[in-house]
C-alpha cells in the first residue's frame, strides 16, 4: 500500500490519503469475499473440465492440461440426462403452476374475506410454516405408497393443489394492500367473489405471481429427498440422477462427468434467478415480506 506511506503534505491530503486507504481496504475485502463465495462453484466448473486422471491425482492439478469440453457432451450420453431433465421440468412446472394458483386463491380468502374462525386458521397457517417438512414427508411417503401413488407424479399434483403456507402468506400480504374500492365496485356490479378474484385481483398481481412461481419452481427443481423417496430410477428427477447415477458399469464413480452434469443442472436455476431478479425483488418487497 503506497498510499499510506506517502508523507503528509497538508492536513487536506492527509485526509484524502486516509480516505483512499480505507477505500482500498474496503474493495480488497469485498473482492476477496466475493471470490471466496464464487470459489466452490468455479472449482466445480474446473473439475468438470479435467480428466479422470487429473481428478484423482495428488497433489492437486489447479488447471486441466487440456480443457476437456467433451465432458459436458459425454455427461448427456453417460446417463439419459435429457430424460431426467424432462422429468424435473414436468414436476417443477406442474407443482409451480398449481401451487401458485392455489396459494393466490387461498391468500385472497385470508386477505379480503371474513368468517368466524379466520383468526385461528391464520394462526395455524403461520404455525405450519414452522413445521419441519421432513417430519411429515416420511409418513406421507408411507401413505402414498399405500395409495399406489409411488412412482407417479400425483404427490406433486396434490401438494400443488393444497397451497403452500409461505406463498399463501406472500399473496395475502399483497392482496391486503389493494384498495377496498376495487371489490366494492365489483360487488355493486353484481360480481361474485370468484370473478372478483380472477378478473380484478389476479391480473394485478403479476409481481407476486412470478415470484411465487419462481420460488416454487426452483424449490422443486432443487428438491432431492422427495423424488428420491417417491420415484423409481427411470422416472426420477435430475437432482437425484446427478447425485447417484454417474457410475461406470463396475460401480466406480465418474467424477468429471458428474461435475459437468451438476454444472448443467445448476445453471438453469442461476439463469432464471438472474433474468427474474428485478421483478422478483419487486415482488418480494411489495408483498411486505422482508
Amino acid at each position, binding site marked *: 500500500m503506497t498510499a499510506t506511506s506517502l508523507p503528509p503534505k497538508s492536513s487536506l491530503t492527509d485526509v484524502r490519503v486516509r480516505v483512499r486507504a480505507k477505500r482500498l481496504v474496503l474493495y480488497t475485502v469485498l473482492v476477496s469475499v466475493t471470490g471466496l463465495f464464487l470459489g466452490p462453484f468455479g472449482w*466445480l466448473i474446473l473439475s468438470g473440465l479435467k480428466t479422470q486422471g487429473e481428478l484423482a491425482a495428488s497433489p492437486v492439478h489447479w488447471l486441466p492440461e487440456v480443457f476437456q469440453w467433451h465432458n459436458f457432451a459425454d455427461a448427456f450420453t453417460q446417463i439419459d440426462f435429457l430424460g431426467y431433465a424432462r422429468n424435473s421440468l414436468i414436476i417443477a412446472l406442474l407443482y409451480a403452476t398449481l401451487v401458485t394458483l392455489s396459494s393466490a386463491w387461498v391468500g385472497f380468502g385470508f386477505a379480503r374475506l371474513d368468517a368466524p374462525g379466520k383468526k385461528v386458521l391464520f394462526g395455524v397457517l403461520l404455525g405450519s410454516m414452522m413445521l419441519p417438512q421432513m417430519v411429515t414427508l416420511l409418513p406421507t411417503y408411507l401413505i402414498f405408497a399405500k395409495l399406489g401413488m409411488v412412482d407417479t407424479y400425483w404427490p406433486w399434483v396434490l401438494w400443488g393443489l*393444497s397451497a403452500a403456507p409461505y406463498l399463501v402468506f406472500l399473496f395475502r400480504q399483497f392482496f391486503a394492500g389493494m384498495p377496498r374500492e376495487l371489490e366494492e365496485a365489483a360487488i355493486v356490479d353484481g360480481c361474485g367473489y370468484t370473478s372478483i378474484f380472477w378478473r380484478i385481483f389476479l391480473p394485478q398481481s403479476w409481481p407476486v405471481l412470478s415470484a411465487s412461481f419462481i420460488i416454487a419452481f426452483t424449490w422443486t427443481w432443487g428438491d432431492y429427498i422427495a423424488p428420491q423417496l417417491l420415484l423409481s430410477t427411470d422416472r426420477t428427477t435430475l437432482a437425484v440422477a446427478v447425485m447417484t447415477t454417474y457410475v461406470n458399469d463396475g460401480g466406480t464413480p465418474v467424477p468429471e462427468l458428474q461435475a459437468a452434469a*451438476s454444472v448443467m443442472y445448476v445453471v438453469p436455476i442461476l439463469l432464471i434467478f438472474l433474468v427474474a431478479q428485478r421483478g422478483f425483488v419487486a415482488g418480494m418487497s411489495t408483498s411486505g415480506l422482508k
Partner: protein
Amino acid sequence: MTADQISTALDRPGTTATSGPARLADRPRTSMTARRHRAFYMFTSPWIIGFLLLTVTPMAYALWLSFTTFDGISPNWRYVGLGNYRELMNDPVTWDALGRTGLFAVTSVPLSIIAGLGLAVLVNRPIKARGLFRTLLYLPAVVPPVGAGLAFKFLFDQNSGATNGVLTIFGIDAIGWLADPYARYVLLMTVLWAAGNIMIISLAGLQDVPRELHEAARIDGASSWRTFRSITIPLLSPVLLFQTVTGMIASVQTIMPLLLAPLGDTGGVTTVPQSNYLYMMHVFAQYFALGRYGYASALLWVLFVLILIATGLIFKFTSGAVFYNVDPEAKK
C-alpha cells in the same frame, strides 16, 4: 370451525379449476355477511383440506405407528405402547445424534446470521458495482442442495480438492475433510455459503432504517459500531428473530450430510461419517436401511416436540428484545 362450515367448504370444491363468471341468476339471496363467510371457506378450503390430508393425517399416522413394531413387510407387527420411546431413550446413538444436531444448530444459525449481516453491511456501503457484488454474493444461496453438496465434495476432496492444494502450498499436510472429524466443518461451510439469503433480507431492513436516526446518532458523537449496535440491530431484530427460527428448523432437517457423503446404498445414509450423523440421518437409517417404521416414527415425533419446545423458548426469550417498528404510514 363447525362441521357446517366444513361441509359448506367441501360443497364447493375450491380448487383453482373453478373459474369463469359467477352466474347472477343462480345466486341464492343471502345476506352479504353470510356470503362473505361462505366465500371465505370456499377460498381457504384447498389449504384446509390439504393441511388435514397431507399434514395432519401423516402426523397422526406416524403417531400411531410409533406405538407399533410396523416395518412394512412383516404381517406380525404389534402394538408396543411406549416401547419404541423407551428404546430410543436408552439408545446412546439417539442421544449422540441429538447432541450433534443441537450443536450444529447453535453454531450454524448464529454464524450464518453474523455472516449475512456482515455481507449486508459491506454491500450497503457506497461502492462501485454494488448491484453486481450483491448478485454475486447472493448466487450461492440459489444453488440447489445437490449442486452445493457436489461443489463442496470436489472443493474438499482429499487429493484433488483446492482446499488441500492451498494447504500444501503453506506446507500443511492434506486433510481428509469429508471424513471424521473434519466433515462437520465442511457441513458448516455449506450453510455459511448460503448466507447471501440473510444478506438480502437484512439489506432490505438496513435500507429501511431512517436516515435521521443515523444522523442524530452521529451528531451525538456515537461511533459507527455503537450506531450499529444500538440502532441498526434493534430495528433489524424482527428479521433476525425470523432467521433464527427458520434457520434452526432448517438445520435440524438438513439432508446435506447425505449429499456430502460418499455414494453408497440406501441414499448414502450408511456412508455418512460419524461427525455428520445428525438426528435426521439416524431417522433415515432406521427408516430405509433398517425399515423400522415404528421406531423411526417415534424418533420423528420426539424431534417434532423438541422443535416446538425450542421455537417456543426462542419466542419467549426474545419477546422483550425484539423491537417492532410500527410505522403509521407503512399501511398504504
